[in-house]
């Protein structure tokens, strides 16, 4: 079964990763580069002179953007391995998985690893003030696990015990609250930060819907192939 999970996940993760990388380069990267002009002090928000909101940005950088494509494909392949492993678990328990159901899995994945953490820690543009990194990483990881577990209970649990636990798991990390800095010292205009967070979430949603659909499609094919009698 490992071969079926790995094959489905590699195909699905790589396809979704390339889509995510292309969308990020077109929609997110220009906002990030704009913010870096403020982070590096090339332009100053609320300085002596008003600055244009449309500065000249560096174009496509083969090394930097090539590494981004590589790492985006890697991240989504990692997500795909976990997603297809969970699909295999659900299949063993009688769930039907195909590309159309995969879209729902993708939406659940987006809610777990992008939207729920972003509710406390919005995707941050370079140069903004932030709390201690390890504390944020711990909160991020705990929120992802709690949200994913809650969505699994909503989808596959039954009865008010399961649904009550799911509501608790969804609320707990947000009520505890994400670590935030004591003061705001970032030089980046809030307009850029807001646009960056919205773009990052939008690209994440598109990529996860694609990842779920691809994962469902490839997993269904691989699982069906494994069920066929061997000819040898």
């Amino acid at each position, binding site marked *: *079964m490992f071969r079926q999970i790995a094959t489905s*996940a590699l195909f699905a993760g790589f396809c979704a990763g390339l889509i995510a990388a292309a969308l*990020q380069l077109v929609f997110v990267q220009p906002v990030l580069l704009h913010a870096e002009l403020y982070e590096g002090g090339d332009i100053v928000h609320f300085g002596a002179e008003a600055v244009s909101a449309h500065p000249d940005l560096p174009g496509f950088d083969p090394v930097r953007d090539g*590494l981004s494509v590589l*790492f985006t494909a890697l991240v989504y392949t990692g997500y*795909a*391995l*976990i997603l*297809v492993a969970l699909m295999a678990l659900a299949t063993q328990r009688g769930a039907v998985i195909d590309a159309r159901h995969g879209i729902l899995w993708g939406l659940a994945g987006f809610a777990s690893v992008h939207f729920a953490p972003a509710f406390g820690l919005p995707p941050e543009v370079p140069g903004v003030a932030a709390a201690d990194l390890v504390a944020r990483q711990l909160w991020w990881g705990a929120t992802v696990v709690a949200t994913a577990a809650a969505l699994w209970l909503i989808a596959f649990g039954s009865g008010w015990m399961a649904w009550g636990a799911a509501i608790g798991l969804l609320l707990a990390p947000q009520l505890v609250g994400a670590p935030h800095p004591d003061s705001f010292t970032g030089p980046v205009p809030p307009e850029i930060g807001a646009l960056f967070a919205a773009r990052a979430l939008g690209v*994440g949603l598109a990529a996860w819907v694609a990842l779920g659909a691809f994962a469902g499609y490839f997993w269904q094919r691989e699982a069906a192939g494994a069920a066929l009698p061997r000819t040898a």
Partner: protein
Amino acid sequence: MMETQTPSGMTARSENMTAHAPAAAGTTSGALSIVAAALIGLGIIVFAGHLQAQTLHDAAHDVRHATGFPCH
């Protein structure tokens, strides 16, 4: 012990064995496969998204911001 077996009896025995052995092995290896795949996936996410080694951080910098991972 094959001398007392009729050809049809042997066929029935071997079918029984092939029907049962993979099913039992399948459940165990299925759970192991699921855990192994998920752990490898988790390792890739931690490596690409969260480790702070300088070279790794610089290479993955834009992706970490764009994917919403805590960075810096």
